[in-house]
């Protein structure tokens, strides 16, 4: 639910931490082997000047500076698909299993093993492509993306390079009201299928690392957005919308904490009015929508400040990590130009050919997507706040729709769900699927209140009995509330 989600965001003023950037020798999780792929924050060359400025004045300065620049933000999202088995073999995937228990010769890359495509991956990819309003490539193929790393068993990743399964789409969303609201439309460059790599578990002291291949071979969909976002909140809402879409489609549980939804953000800024893009910086290690928001805002400020101080050449194309604790980005590794992945078509897999009938049948089976729901609720006369609350959580929307289909009044249903029921859920830390009041019963309750059979106050009390399903009220019928009202009045 959008409103509760963003309640926890606090905007941190940007302090200059001249020494803090250097105080950690080994501040990043990934740097345990002395390989050229990871470098620590100690390799930052420049020391920003020490300035002592009062906080409020500092924030004003920062805001003023950032106003002169336009931020260009693009997001690469990886969605882990919830297919029963992996992309190219029949191993199951269960998050949190003991290491190396869901593997086989194929996902381990043993000699002689060959990949065979799991057809559900295509189905899910087509669903997502259609949901994101993309153009589907009826003839696409798989390619090998080659590089060496211990979590990549075959030494290459089976992905799609030049002919992704879906291109040129867009996503519609509404920004949360506490951040100004407003409708936005962000472009989607491409969606393609690929397989996930395994996981590396690093020892505490950095002496060794262990490879867990449970995750190797799990199907992913990579969604690359157009660089249309301009602020942290836009980016965070884009990511939240993607999460909603994949959950609505049932193709992924979209959990950032579990790693089934991963976002890498690319941020650059340019002076307002300039048409040329600035240097792009990639940010990784974003584990929640709020950290997306904060990381981007921090990065924009960092770059703006460097620009304003005439040190824009200090902004290099690199990958930075977002440190949740310190609430800042730090250098992870500098990108020396583009890596050469030596792409070529995967010879072990045939071309992916989609017929129009197949695409149409999937198109016809798509559920109502968040955007459509929002527009429908809007048309019903609900306020934007109500719309966002009700439509953005799939389960809440379903509950609401069912209540309505049982004949309840729209406004009242909305109020009940957003008010008492939401409060109850928050109190008991339950989700709407857990509460024991069925939509039909809610509809009945609302009907009685509306018709005056019982008062709102009685209604609220009665709710509790529904919640707890006390035995005496097991077969409680709303008509009997009438008697309760009378009793109460006495």
């Amino acid at each position, binding site marked *: 639910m959008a409103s509760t989600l963003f309640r926890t965001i606090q905007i941190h003023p940007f302090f200059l931490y001249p020494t803090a950037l250097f105080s950690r020798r080994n501040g990043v999780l990934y740097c345990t*082997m*002395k*390989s*050229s792929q990871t470098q620590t924050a100690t390799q930052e060359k420049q020391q920003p000047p020490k300035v002592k400025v009062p906080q409020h004045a500092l924030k004003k300065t920062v805001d003023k500076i950032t106003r002169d620049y336009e931020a260009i933000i693009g997001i690469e999202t990886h969605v882990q698909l919830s297919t029963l088995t992996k992309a190219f073999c029949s191993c199951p995937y269960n998050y949190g299993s003991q290491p190396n228990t869901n593997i086989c*010769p194929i996902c*381990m*890359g*043993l*000699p*002689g*093993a*060959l*990949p*065979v*495509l799991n057809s559900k991956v295509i189905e899910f990819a087509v669903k997502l492509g259609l949901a994101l309003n993309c153009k589907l490539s009826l003839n696409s193929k798989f390619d*090998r993306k*080659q590089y*060496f790393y*211990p979590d990549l*068993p*075959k*030494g*290459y990743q089976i992905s799609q390079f030049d002919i992704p399964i879906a291109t040129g789409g867009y996503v519609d969303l509404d920004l949360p009201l506490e951040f100004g609201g407003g409708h936005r439309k962000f472009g989607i460059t491409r969606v393609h299928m690929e397989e996930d790599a395994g996981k590396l578990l690093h020892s505490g002291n950095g002496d060794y690392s262990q*490879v867990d291949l449970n995750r190797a071979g799990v199907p992913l969909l990579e969604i690359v957005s157009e660089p249309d976002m301009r602020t942290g909140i836009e980016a965070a809402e884009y990511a939240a919308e993607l999460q909603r879409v994949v959950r609505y489609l049932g193709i992924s549980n979209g959990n950032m904490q579990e790693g089934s939804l991963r976002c890498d953000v690319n941020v650059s800024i340019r002076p307002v009015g300039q048409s040329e893009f600035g240097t792009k910086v990639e940010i990784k290690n974003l584990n929640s929508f709020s950290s997306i928001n904060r990381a981007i805002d921090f990065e924009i400020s960092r770059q703006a400040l460097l620009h304003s101080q005439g040190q824009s050449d200090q902004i290099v194309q690199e990958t930075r990590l977002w440190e949740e604790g310190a609430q800042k980005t730090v250098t992870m590794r500098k990108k020396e130009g583009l890596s*050469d992945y*030596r*792409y*070529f078509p995967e*010879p*072990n*897999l*045939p071309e992916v050919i989609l017929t129009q009938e197949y695409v149409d049948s999937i198109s016809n089976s798509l559920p109502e997507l968040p955007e459509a729901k929002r527009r429908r609720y809007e048309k019903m006369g609900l306020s934007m706040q109500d719309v966002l609350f009700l439509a953005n959580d799939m389960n809440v929307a379903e509950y609401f729709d069912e209540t309505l289909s049982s004949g309840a009044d729209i406004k009242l249903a909305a109020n009940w769900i957003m008010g008492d029921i939401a409060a109850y859920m928050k109190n008991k830390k339950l989700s709407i699927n857990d509460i024991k009041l069925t939509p039909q019963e809610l509809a009945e309750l609302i009907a009685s209140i509306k018709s005056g059979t019982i008062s709102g106050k009685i209604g609220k009390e009665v709710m509790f009995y529904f919640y707890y399903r006390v035995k005496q009220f097991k077969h409680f019928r709303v008509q009997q509330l009438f008697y309760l009202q009378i009793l109460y009045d006495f």
Partner: protein
Amino acid sequence: MLSTIQPPRYLSRFPLRGRTKSRSFHILSSAQPVTKTCFAADKSQILSIRDSLLNRHLSAVELTHSYLDRLKQTEPHINCFLHVSDPDKVLKQAQDIDDKIKRNEEVGPLAGVLVAIKDNICTADMPSTGGSYILEGYRPPFDATAVKRLKDLGAIVVGKTNLDEFGMGSTTEASAFKVTANPWDLSRVPGGSSGGSAASVSARQCVVSLGSDTGGSVRQPASFCGVVGLKPTYGRVSRFGLMAYASSLDVIGCFGSSVADTGILLHAISGHDSLDATSSKREVPDFTSQFTYASSLKSRPLEGLRVGLIRETVDAGVDSGVKSAIEGAAAHLEQLGCVLKEVSLPSFSLGLPAYYILASSESSSNLSRYDGVRYGNQASSDELNVLYEESRAKGFGSEVKMRILMGTYALSAGYYDAYYKRAQQVRTIIRKSFKAALDENDILISPAAPSAAYKIGEKKNDPLAMYAGDIMTVNVNLAGLPALVLPCGFVEGGAVGLPVGLQIIGAAFDEFAKHKCLLNGFFERNL
């Protein structure tokens, strides 16, 4: 009929220096000492074995003993095997077959047949090294599909044969472990990369064997060792369990002492496999039902069969001895009723460079998994890149390294279009020209190699010369077509002459077209 030398043949024609093996070898109770260059089709060893076992003329244990003895005697001289199965286990399997037969239970069509498997095909109960140090001691946790099918039909795997490392080479000299000798002349190569498999059938250490063919690795050794080698259509046999060299070119092939045996073996391993997305769903015809015995044929049995001799393969660069053997075979075919004509495939010479670019590129990618991290020989190091570098530098031989370098280069940014993409386009041209030629002709014929077996060490320092020897065979892999090599004559060399094979190329999935079977059967009989 043939203008080449036809030395007298004995059953045990293995020319050991100073020791002629004159005793008859009782492999087949129904066999007579063969006095021709090769066995006749109607003397299919597999069928004879089955006949003998089921009629209780011979027991599987006796049969196995005789082969194992032969293996033990010959192995120190020819070095075919990287790993020989434990004799006790093998004999136990044979005993089980005998027991089943005694109890009148069904035994598979390959019961009692001893098979050797090339070491780049995974076998669960035996090491599979691919001929490389990097997989020294590696034991796969699964059987290749082809091996599994053989075992299910009752075959006994007698061991893993020597090969050029990961299938890259034409002599077995690129094996990390040993060099196999040609049974016809121990100072010469058996061919490659399936040299061990070809030599072991040639020396009769086993009945049949499996090899792999990416650019001629079954056909060229078949020609050098005087046995029948079959390369099926790409997709006919599952590649699951075959250590990948070039994924779009690799196939598993069969060696046998007769066409019938290779046919039976092919039938046993063919068919769609859900573990190989490139394996064909086409039904596998029963090849064996298409064989006819020589005795039942009329005088011109191949009447009307259109045979095309590929002109570019008998041009300059081919040994005169080989040329005359092929021309003799062609003349013989005409006598049998074929309509022979010369066919020109102008794109023929483009095949070799295209092949080497595609094969090197794909192999550079397929060999990336050998990094010492999860299996195989690992060089110890504190640093990741050093671990990769050392494990691979020490584990791979120079031929493999060379191809990985070439392939990585060809795929790198800026070169992909000029090399890989271009080579794929050439491949399409070659495929089309073969299809056109096979529309006009039923089969195409050519030599399998420009010469007979050369001396060990002769081509070692001249890789390009060695690559040039693949000219006859690579185009068939590029086009994905089936081809059969059968011995058709001899050239001078060695103690008794060196065998030369005739390559017969057919249309896709047409491994044993009716006419071809007649051709093969009859042809063999009359050589």
